[in-house]
């Protein structure tokens, strides 16, 4: 058998804390200078940088094994198929899905959610049915449901959040009814950092037999995910947020649900037999994978999942918590009038903030001159920002490779920027 025969559980003992200095060496881009200063990359919630093993996996595939996958008889096609299907098992293991048939490759979280809306939603929902989303959702977990609601006469209801950015579970329970067909919530909010109690959300949804979709784009990079333990029906994630490439993501779906769902996009790869009279479809997971996918990116995403397991997502999460606490303390003591948007207990490595008399755009532009990359704007989560009475925030978000020294430099830089804008 090839080197891709099985996904070996390589997760070593993760008791020792992360060796960040050593880990940084794995990321070539971190040695770059921006505007003549060392890069301080704090835009990880938008996309993460990639470790050497992931870069090599993609490069190696393209140099040595590139071919179109499935059905090819020649050696390269077999190798490519093996590599791609190996990636599927790596992703299956990352989220502990029962079967690789339940791992659908998509372009990313957004496409995964749209797949559920267009296939499951269009075939299963009817006028009067209700969909619950939370107020802190990314637009990718709002707009597909709005489009579907408009088309089918569904009602979209919104679970509120409190002033800390914590989901109002009492309100959620009150909104649940026998009309609730779907609950779609983020595992971790990209704008606030809130980690939602997805187990409890799922358990409650199941009391009214609602289907549950978790937007895990910000979840998998920070929290150990076990879809069986959560019990959700669908879980969506993006490769580029788990130290992998862009253009590839995953929809996990419970097999029984996926089996019952009609295909969404038609084309090659997803068929069994095609004639002008009748076409029959391929089995899972290929039924939902029309056309040639981003094969090299898929292989590299698999390697990224493996890297995440080897490095230990719990250790990464713990380090990011430390950084977030440290940064929050430093920011508050250095800039007493800073307003942090989202202060949920135990939140993930995201600090969204506003400074009086300093437009987020100005902060972002000026701090970039100092080599610090942060994101400014509405973070594709306009409803929740409006809830907090702001149109835009500046957001620093952490990954495994960020350091306390970088946090110090970020805070110093912010003070300088603040002085310039005063």
């Amino acid at each position: 058998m090839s080197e891709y025969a099985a996904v070996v559980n390589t997760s070593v003992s993760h008791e020792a804390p992360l060796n960040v200095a050593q880990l940084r060496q794995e990321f070539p881009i971190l040695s770059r200078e921006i505007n003549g200063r060392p890069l301080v990359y704090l835009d990880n919630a938008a996309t993460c940088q990639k470790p050497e093993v992931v870069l090599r996996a993609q490069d190696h595939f393209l140099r040595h094994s590139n071919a179109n996958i499935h059905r090819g008889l020649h050696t390269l096609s077999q190798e490519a198929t093996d590599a791609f299907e190996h990636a599927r098992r790596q992703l299956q293991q990352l989220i502990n899905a029962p079967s690789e048939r339940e791992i659908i490759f998509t372009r990313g979280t957004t496409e995964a959610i749209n797949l559920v809306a267009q296939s499951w939603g269009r075939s299963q929902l009817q006028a009067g049915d209700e969909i619950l989303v939370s107020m802190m959702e990314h637009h990718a977990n709002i707009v597909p449901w709005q489009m579907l609601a408009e088309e089918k006469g569904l009602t979209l209801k919104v679970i509120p959040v409190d002033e800390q950015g914590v989901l109002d579970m009492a309100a959620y329970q009150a909104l649940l009814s026998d009309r609730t067909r779907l609950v779609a919530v983020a595992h971790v909010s990209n704008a606030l950092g809130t980690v939602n109690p997805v187990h409890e959300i799922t358990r409650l949804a199941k009391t009214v037999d609602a289907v549950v979709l978790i937007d895990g784009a910000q979840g998998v990079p920070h929290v150990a995910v076990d879809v069986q333990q959560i019990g959700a029906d669908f879980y969506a994630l993006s490769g580029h947020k788990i130290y992998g490439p862009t253009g590839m993501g995953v929809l996990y779906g419970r097999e029984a649900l996926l089996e019952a769902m009609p295909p969404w996009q038609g084309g090659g790869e997803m068929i069994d037999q095609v004639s002008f009279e009748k076409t029959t479809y391929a089995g899972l997971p290929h039924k939902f994978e029309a056309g040639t996918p981003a094969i090299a990116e898929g292989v590299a995403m698999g390697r990224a999942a493996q890297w995440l397991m080897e490095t230990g997502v719990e250790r990464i999460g713990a380090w990011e918590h430390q950084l977030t606490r440290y940064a929050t303390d430093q920011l508050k003591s250095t800039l007493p009038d800073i307003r942090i948007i989202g202060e949920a207990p135990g939140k993930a490595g995201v600090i969204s903030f506003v400074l009086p008399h300093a437009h987020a755009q100005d902060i972002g532009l000026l701090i970039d001159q100092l080599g610090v990359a942060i994101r400014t704007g509405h973070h594709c989560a306009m409803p929740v920002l409006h809830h907090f009475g702001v149109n835009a925030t500046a957001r620093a978000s952490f990954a495994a490779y960020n350091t306390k020294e970088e946090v110090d430099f970020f805070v110093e830089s912010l003070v300088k920027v603040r002085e310039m804008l005063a």
Partner: protein
Amino acid sequence: MSAQDAQQELLDEFEFFDNWMDRYQYIIDLGKQLPEYPDEWKTEAFKIEGCQSQVWIRPQRQGDYLHFDAISDAAIVSGLIAILMKIYNDRTPQDILETPPDSFMQALGLDKHLSPTRSNGLHAMIKRIFTIAQLEQ
């Protein structure tokens, strides 16, 4: 002074700055010196929506000249507006049309702020100034 002369004057001023902080500080200060833009002019008709910052520009024909009042809710964009106002405000339409901003802003090292992908409203503001100049020619 023509629009071209105003450009040269700005280029001379910017030559003094040998670091980015001073340059941006100067731009921010220019923005603060923009004439007051009353709230009642912040209407939809005068608004240019950027992705992150907003720009308002109110054009007026004053004899042979085009007069503009403009402001942004962000400091650097306001400063860049102030620079553009030094070149384009109270000029004849002809003068405006003969003075494209690109090479000048490049010389100042500020051209990246004008690209359509920056979506800060400046690109659209310049387009509006030129459209008005064309119509009023």
